[in-house]
């Protein structure tokens, strides 16, 4: 099977050594003068990351799934690669259907989440950077762990599974911390040395700094009118998984905080006209659609905050890196009974004065949809309307424009927009 992406991929590999140069990455970002400052940092980081991933020796690269803490990987001196996020990035360029077809041909069941199916397809086509090791956490979904272990098996490379306890207690935190330390030792040994604790501590320091700045930015996003365009923020969700523990995380959130401060002072919100205020849950389609044009430009609704933008964890403690990373993982709102996630949503709705909630139900994602009925009931109990949009974040063939539009319009009408 020939991929449309073949030529672009070859180009990327050729340019990788140049792109990995921080000055070149910065220049590439500066060329995009239309973006806001934090978007430019995001772009700079993406260019550099792509460069590093495709020009570094495989021993430096660790494939992981999204909740494996990036601080751990950066801190150990490796470069993280999250195939799920790569699948979303590539879907943006309209290439996911080809990868999904390839996964189909390999016999991957179609009711699996397309983030993983596309990742399997891209991996099979050889489009992903080569790795030295694989780390998976069996949370929020098992598919990632299965996929990563399969890739490790195929290439005869080390695979580490982080077993996530289902509740947050002191015991479970120690159990998880032990598991993380084992991963650290294992990864370090793939390069023939013990890990360097200073490296992890530095990553924790950077993560904490980014966290404080993110909190400041979050606080300012409560301002009315809403300073940022939520659709852009949802677009950055994948990137955020990489940022904590890297200097780019600090740069990104500092730029965002300063930018929000400035646009509030100058009364220049990104979205001029603002009607209904929406809180966005779960993900969004990553290929091109008219969904956000409809919401923000046509209907003038504003996405005031996103579930995955929230900073849910306490500061990390440098003296106890593994335990505090374990605590960070265990305090994730989606862990354990769904009450945690619902409570977080309700608190955000209140704090951001949202009129309604949108939940994008991604096909095949059990973890986000399993408790949707409960979420609906609880939100309704608090007088907060919920709209479920059904679609696929990666597979554009699973997106019905007209049907999504009718639901979205009806929901906004019910919130009072235009009736």
């Amino acid at each position, binding site marked *: 099977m020939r991929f449309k992406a073949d030529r672009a991929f070859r180009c990327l590999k050729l340019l990788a050594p140049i792109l990995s140069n921080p000055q070149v990455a910065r220049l590439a970002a500066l060329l995009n003068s239309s973006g806001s400052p934090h978007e430019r940092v995001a772009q700079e980081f993406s260019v550099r990351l792509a460069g590093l991933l495709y020009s570094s020796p495989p021993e430096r690269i660790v494939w992981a799934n999204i909740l494996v803490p990036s601080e751990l990987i950066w801190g150990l001196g490796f470069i993280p690669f999250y195939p799920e996020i790569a699948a979303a990035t590539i879907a943006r360029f309209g290439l996911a259907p080809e990868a999904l077809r390839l996964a189909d041909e390999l016999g991957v069941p179609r009711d699996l989440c397309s983030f993983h199916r596309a990742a399997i397809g891209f991996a099979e086509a050889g489009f992903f950077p080569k790795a030295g090791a694989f780390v998976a956490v069996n949370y929020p979904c098992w598919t990632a762990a299965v996929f990563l272990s399969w890739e490790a098996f195929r290439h005869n490379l080390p695979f580490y599974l982080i077993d996530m306890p289902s509740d947050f207690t002191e015991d479970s935190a120690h159990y998880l911390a032990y598991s993380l330390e084992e991963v650290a030792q294992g990864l370090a040994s793939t390069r023939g040395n013990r890990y360097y604790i200073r490296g992890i501590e530095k990553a924790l320091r950077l993560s904490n700094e980014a966290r404080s700045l993110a909190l400041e930015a979050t606080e300012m996003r409560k301002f009315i009118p809403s300073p940022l365009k939520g659709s852009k923020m949802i677009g950055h969700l994948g990137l955020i998984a990489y940022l904590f523990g890297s200097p780019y995380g600090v740069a990104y959130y500092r730029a965002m905080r300063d930018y929000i401060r400035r646009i509030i002072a100058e009364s220049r919100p990104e979205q001029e006209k603002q009607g209904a205020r929406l809180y966005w849950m779960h993900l969004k389609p990553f290929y091109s659609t008219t969904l956000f044009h409809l919401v923000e430009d046509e209907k003038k609704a504003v996405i005031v905050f996103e579930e995955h933008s929230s900073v849910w964890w306490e500061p990390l403690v440098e003296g106890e890196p593994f335990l505090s990373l374990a605590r960070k993982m265990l305090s994730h709102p989606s862990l354990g009974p769904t009450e945690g996630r619902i409570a977080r949503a309700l608190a955000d709705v209140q704090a951001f004065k949202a009129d309604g909630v949108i939940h994008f139900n991604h096909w095949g994602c059990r973890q986000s949809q399993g408790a949707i009925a409960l979420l609906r009931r609880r939100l309704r109990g608090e007088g907060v309307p919920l709209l479920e949009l059904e679609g696929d974040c990666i597979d554009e063939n699973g997106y019905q424009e007209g*049907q999504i539009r009718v*639901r979205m319009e009806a929901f906004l009408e*019910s919130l009072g927009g235009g009736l």
Partner: protein
Amino acid sequence: MKYPVGIDVGSASAEALILKDGKILAYSILETGANSRKAAEKALEEALEKAKISRAEVGPIVATGYGRISVDFASRQVTEISCYARGIHFLYPEVRMVIDIGGQDSKAILVGKNGRVLDFVMNDKCAAGTGRFLEVMARVMEVDVEKLGEISLRSRNPAEISSTCTVFAESEVVSLIARGVPVEDIAAGIHKAIARRVGAMAKRIGVTPPVAFAGGVAKNVGVVKALEEELGVKLIVPEEPQIVGALGAALLASEEG
């Protein structure tokens, strides 16, 4: 004074409704066919004829339904969800939920005391639980779809149709016919299958009586009975269940003027 108009262009039928002093002056119902815009034009012309007024005397026009975007002569477009809620509230202010089964979709809407939508759920991805499902089954049974309801009322022992997919249900019906199961039992089984599907959808947002039933399929007494049994409530069926969307659109138009 101008007459506000609502036009509902659904996948199967198009309706136009004209209001005068807050009352229904005239309406038309016809098949949509292949061209939504033409259907809207024709529906309006027919309603104008019945009302004995000219095109120049109407306005504003609000379009709704799946073909609303193609009604470019409307002053604005509103979704059928909002229009059904508004229309049913006008006819029966006490109604708290309206279920609509149309040609190619079905929906359940929770209606607030002011006629606003509180919550809604829709099925427009699959033919099961829509008028199309009935059409397909009636064709297999070689029975006129309009007669299916009455036929089913004679049933004492409704057949069990377990497939939720139209294609599989169709083959189930074929084998029921081959086995010599009486036609009324098959018809009742079909209605039960629809009611189960739509009932499950309505339950997702909470069945809140009084419940009204609108849309073309509400004319089928067999589906009404099966849905009442499924939901455990008596359904309010408007005299002309197909015009509720157009009525809602016309009411919204009257608020514009």
